[in-house]
């Protein structure tokens, strides 16, 4: 192509013309002069013969009302999560909800937008007067936190796509020693701080750490850089034996949810004085969220395993205080 550069505009056009004509020459003995200089685009009328210019596709981004639907779906899924865990105490249905959320927020929406990543946009929008975010992003960020203030981390159980993909691979979870669990749990606050620090830098140096190093979004999009897919795979393999490692030790939004969940009035509760005091629930919790026979709201990920492990779960579901009695030990 260097000849084009050298000859310049006019000569190059001539060259193309010669090329085209040269080709025509070989077929037809008579040369046909090129009567249509390529300077203006022929329009429908020039072409004639009822020719219609095809429509150019300029697909619009996802409709605003569909983005509102996403936020409504987020709220509804959290409502269902609360109802399934606190009222129905049903692990089975919670798994079904997790699969549905994984399909919708994960594979269909390809992991965007999620409350975890929206955290950075919110921080930037507060720090930078020239940066602002759509209302749906604000809502996506605030909703799970507001819910956590009252009911605990309902978002983490069966709604968050990143949580759901890890929830479904938990195979033989070990109990992480309490001190190690706590120490690793501090990592997520360091990550949160780092993400905020990088997000509030000036516009050109700004970095969205959480999105860049999201270990699972590559699976949702069925494409991604090899090293991130490897890290994601490693998290899933580790997640078979250590319950939900990303949620417990790295998720920065999980850190915020944990603070809010501390203040929750309702949430998953274990009441040994009313129940059997057998400790099966504590053994069943892969997330170290049952300490001294009490559910710890800030660590509870709403998985409902404690209920399904409870030998008296059937009686306790829908039970009111006072109705609970050990079978055969008291009046029926």
């Amino acid at each position, binding site marked *: 192509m260097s000849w084009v550069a050298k000859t310049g505009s006019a000569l190059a056009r001539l060259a193309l013309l010669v090329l*085209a004509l040269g080709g025509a020459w070989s077929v037809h003995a008579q040369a046909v002069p090129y009567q249509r200089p390529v300077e203006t685009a022929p329009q429908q009328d020039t072409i004639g013969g009822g020719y219609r210019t095809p429509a*150019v596709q300029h697909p619009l*981004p996802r409709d605003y009302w569909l983005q509102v639907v996403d936020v409504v779906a987020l709220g509804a899924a959290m409502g269902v999560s609360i109802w399934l865990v606190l009222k129905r105490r049903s692990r089975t249905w919670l798994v079904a909800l997790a699969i549905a959320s994984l399909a919708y927020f994960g594979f269909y929406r390809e992991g965007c937008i999620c409350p975890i990543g929206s955290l950075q946009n*919110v921080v930037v929008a507060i720090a930078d007067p020239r940066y602002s975010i*759509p209302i749906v992003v604000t809502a996506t960020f605030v909703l799970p936190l507001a819910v956590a203030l009252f009911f605990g981390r309902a978002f983490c159980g069966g709604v968050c796509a990143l949580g759901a993909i890890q929830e479904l691979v938990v195979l033989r979870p070990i109990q992480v020693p309490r001190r190690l669990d706590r120490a690793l749990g501090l990592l997520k606050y360091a990550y949160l701080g780092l993400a905020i620090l990088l997000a509030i830098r000036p516009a050109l140096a700004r970095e969205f750490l959480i999105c860049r190093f999201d270990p699972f979004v590559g699976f949702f999009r069925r494409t991604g850089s090899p090293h991130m897919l490897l890290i994601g795979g490693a998290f899933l393999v580790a997640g078979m034996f250590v319950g939900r490692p990303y949620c417990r030790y790295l998720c920065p939004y999980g850190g915020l949810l944990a603070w809010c969940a501390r203040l929750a009035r309702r949430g998953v509760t274990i009441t040994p004085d009313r129940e059997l005091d057998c400790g099966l629930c504590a053994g069943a919790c892969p997330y170290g969220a049952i300490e001294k026979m009490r559910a710890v709201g800030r660590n509870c990920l709403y998985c409902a395993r404690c209920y399904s492990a409870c030998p008296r779960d059937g009686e306790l579901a829908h039970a009111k205080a006072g109705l609970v009695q050990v079978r055969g030990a008291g009046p029926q």
Partner: protein
Amino acid sequence: MSDLQTRRDLFSTVARGTVLAVLAGGAGFLVKKANGQVVWQVDASRCINSRLGEVGVAACNLCTTECVVALSAVRAVNEYSRCGRCNICPAYFNITSAVNELGQPSEKLCPRDAIRRRPIGKVDPEDPANNFYEYVIDEEKCDGCGKCVMQCKEPLGLGSITLRVRYDKCVNCNRCSISTACPQKALMQLPVHQATQPAEVQRPG
């Protein structure tokens, strides 16, 4: 004990109220300055493939290699109203390849064979140079490598093909990874209504 419990309840109620107020205040602040949606788009007058004056240089394919979406959310789009509908389209044919018996270059330019060529109306065999041809890009095959874009501009083409972000593909990353890689800073965030307009190419200077 019950006194302690009451005090704890009171504390958590106050704390919860405070956090709610902070959340509501923050949300209110953000809603007040909320914008419409902004999306990424290629500035055709910055992109080295479509920018005028860039001739004889290799096409830049960073849009293909850097995008996080499969293939790429950036595709070549032919703005038909600007297309010359040429017989020998420099974006369709590899015009440096040998001429075949039909009088056309023997190779196509697109590595993924994503451009379709069909004659418009009746073809006059006596006057092959002056027939009109329609060039349609198969958006499902195109990966935005920019080769056709580099050719479809002066001196040979009219600049009807440009690289565009396809919003049915783009996931609208916070920081578009193509924008980070693009040496021309050709990717910019625009309000939706501006970003979905056809691309404008400006002459340098």
